């Protein structure tokens, strides 16, 4: 009797304690609930934004679909949690989401002090400036004394201060937490300049009353490797998510697409493709999944190139740094073997 009461108390205590107290709890929770909880942007075309049917599109949202497919086998089993720049890390730290896939810059501080760790680079970006054409500015060095709209709590905010300091120029920031309010302030003329990652500028420019009134300056003032991140401590989940990222890049390199993946698995004589798609070796089992995992993922969302083409090219951005390393870009996955 007393024993049973103790068990009940212990169970109650275990339920009250956040699920993280156990080993590998994130992966267990995803498997048992059959859903991956994914922190995304509140709405940034090309990265994560809900479409007319309420389904999330964009490369960051699609990465979550890929991880969900790898673990629970279905790209629809994702619960999207929209976050802004100010609450994104807290949402991850507190366990409200399993993964944060929200055009977030990979830096040493974030990798070391947040209790989170980046998986890799999903999109190479750089910070740029957008100005109304009518102010007649053509390069960043002409911006001395400008009023700049910037999102708070971003690397952008720090780079901006660094850039103006290093050039001995001055500026006035206008800092509003919600992107929609901030772009409204910029379009209304409260600021001379809007600054964020160049991809974000391209996406924001599409929402302008008249996009041809605005110009994205050619200067990139920083390196912004954007990538997804997960909490520290659940290394099985970390490894699966990280190799899903690499798997999608590797698939593009070897020409495996959502169209031909089954055929490639059955027919390809390339040992690298065979290993990647589980026709030989035990890569999937080593990750704690089955050997078909990457086949499933590629069938559901396509390889990195397909994801990029579907989401980023409509913004008018070329592959640039995000091309495969063989094509002069930086996308380079470690070998899957």
């Amino acid at each position: 009797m007393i024993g049973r009461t103790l068990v009940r108390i212990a169970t109650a205590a275990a339920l009250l304690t956040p699920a993280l107290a156990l080993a590998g709890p994130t992966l267990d929770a995803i498997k048992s609930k059959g859903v991956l909880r994914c922190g995304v942007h509140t709405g940034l075309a090309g990265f994560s934004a809900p479409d007319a049917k309420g389904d999330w599109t964009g490369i960051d949202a699609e990465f979550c679909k890929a991880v969900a497919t790898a673990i629970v086998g279905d790209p629809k089993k994702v619960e999207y949690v929209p976050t802004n720049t100010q609450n994104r890390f807290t949402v991850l730290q507190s366990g409200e989401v399993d993964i944060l896939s929200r055009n977030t810059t990979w830096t040493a501080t974030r990798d070391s002090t947040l209790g989170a760790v980046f998986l890799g680079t999903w999109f190479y970006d750089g910070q740029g400036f957008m100005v109304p054409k009518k102010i007649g500015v053509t390069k960043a060095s002409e911006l001395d004394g400008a009023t700049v709209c910037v999102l708070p709590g971003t690397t952008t905010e720090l780079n901006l201060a660094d850039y103006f300091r290093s050039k001995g120029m001055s500026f006035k920031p206008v800092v509003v937490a919600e992107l929609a309010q901030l772009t409204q302030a910029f379009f209304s003329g409260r600021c001379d300049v809007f600054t964020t990652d160049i991809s974000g500028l391209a996406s924001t420019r599409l929402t302008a009353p008249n996009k041809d009134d605005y110009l994205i300056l050619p200067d990139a003032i920083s390196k912004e490797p954007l990538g997804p991140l997960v909490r520290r401590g659940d290394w099985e989940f970390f490894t699966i998510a990280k190799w899903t990222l690499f798997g999608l890049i590797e698939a593009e390199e070897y020409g495996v697409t959502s169209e031909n993946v089954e055929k490639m698995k059955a027919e390809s004589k390339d040992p690298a493709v065979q290993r990647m798609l589980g026709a030989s070796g035990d890569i999937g089992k080593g990750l704690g999944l089955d050997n078909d995992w990457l086949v499933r993922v590629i069938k559901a969302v396509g390889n990195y190139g397909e994801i990029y083409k579907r989401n980023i090219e409509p913004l008018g951005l070329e592959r640039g740094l995000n091309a495969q390393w063989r094509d002069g870009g930086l996308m380079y996955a470690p070998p899957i073997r």
Partner: protein
Amino acid sequence: MARRRSDVRTADPLRVLSNERTRGIVWQLLLLAAVVGVGWYLFDNTQHNLAQRQIRVGFDFLGREAGFEIAEARIAYSPADTYGRAFLAGISNTLWVSALGIVAATLLGTLIGIGRLSTNWLVARLAGGYVEFMRNIPLLLQLFIWYGLFTELLPPVRQALAFGDLAFWSQRGLRIAWPQPHPAWQVAGWALLAGIALAIGWRHAARARQQRTGRQWPMFVPAMVLMVGLPLLAWWLSGAPTDLDRPVLKGFNFAGGLVVTPEFLALLIGLSTYTAAFIAEVVRAGIQSVDRGQGEAAMSLGLSPAQQLRLVTLPQALRVIVPPMTSQYLNLTKNSSLAVAIGYPDLVSVANTSMNQTGQAIEAIVILMAVYLAISLLISVFMNWYNARVRLVER
């Protein structure tokens, strides 16, 4: 037999519990234990989870370089300063807008409160309409409206509304010509302080004389001479500088002059017009609480209407007004944290940014809570002191 019964009484533990005093102590101890236990559980759980997730804790980040710019601050701040200094800059902005807001809301609220009691039908209805309109629209919405007015409706900086070459008003805010820095202004400032002190001294002396002899000294003219004339004299004696720092259009914006940003203006006006509606009601209730007979008695003693208000009605109304007024001041100060929605860099805005740059969420929230608690307690202490002074002394 009797002896045995008393033995039973002392030995029975239930008897001890039926003692009211003992029972009270036991319950209080149990409650204390429960509170301490829950507190400990929360603390321990947080510590455990922070350690588990390898999140760094501690306040040492306050000494690190902040690296982000703050649009405006009452203290000198640059991105090369520390997070600690950034927090101070945020606190200075919160205090500044709260203090000005309290003064503006009190003046406006008092006027409207008195207006509601006016015998003029139009004035009374207008004041009543203001109160109902302002206090029934959420403050956040009002802030968005003010901010929208100041950034969308005003002209761009190059077509700024000009008031001679002394002031310009555009989307970028208000630029006002301001005296060039000169030692004379400091001297005048000190003279103003001295004038205020002397005026207070004059009032004390006049009171003492009236107590002793029943005769009054004039109050208004000497006080004005001391508080206005003395600073003017000091300014004139130390060189009478009249150079103004005029705003001039240069590059992207005006340079020079005093800047009032649209964010600050929207927040200040939003906070004070909103709180004024509540203060008006407090003032109206206070004045109505004073019995009419008091005013009639004062009149029959031969006091002028101004004296009647100052010496009879107001002192009795204040004891009703001051306590709820404290709550309104506290509300205004706390509502200033809505600044974050329209981009005024108050304490919450700075704390949010710091939290995000460093990941030190718990520490930043602790600082936020401590600062707001301290400001609120200070306002309470001051208002309680003032309340004790104006409270009715019954004889």
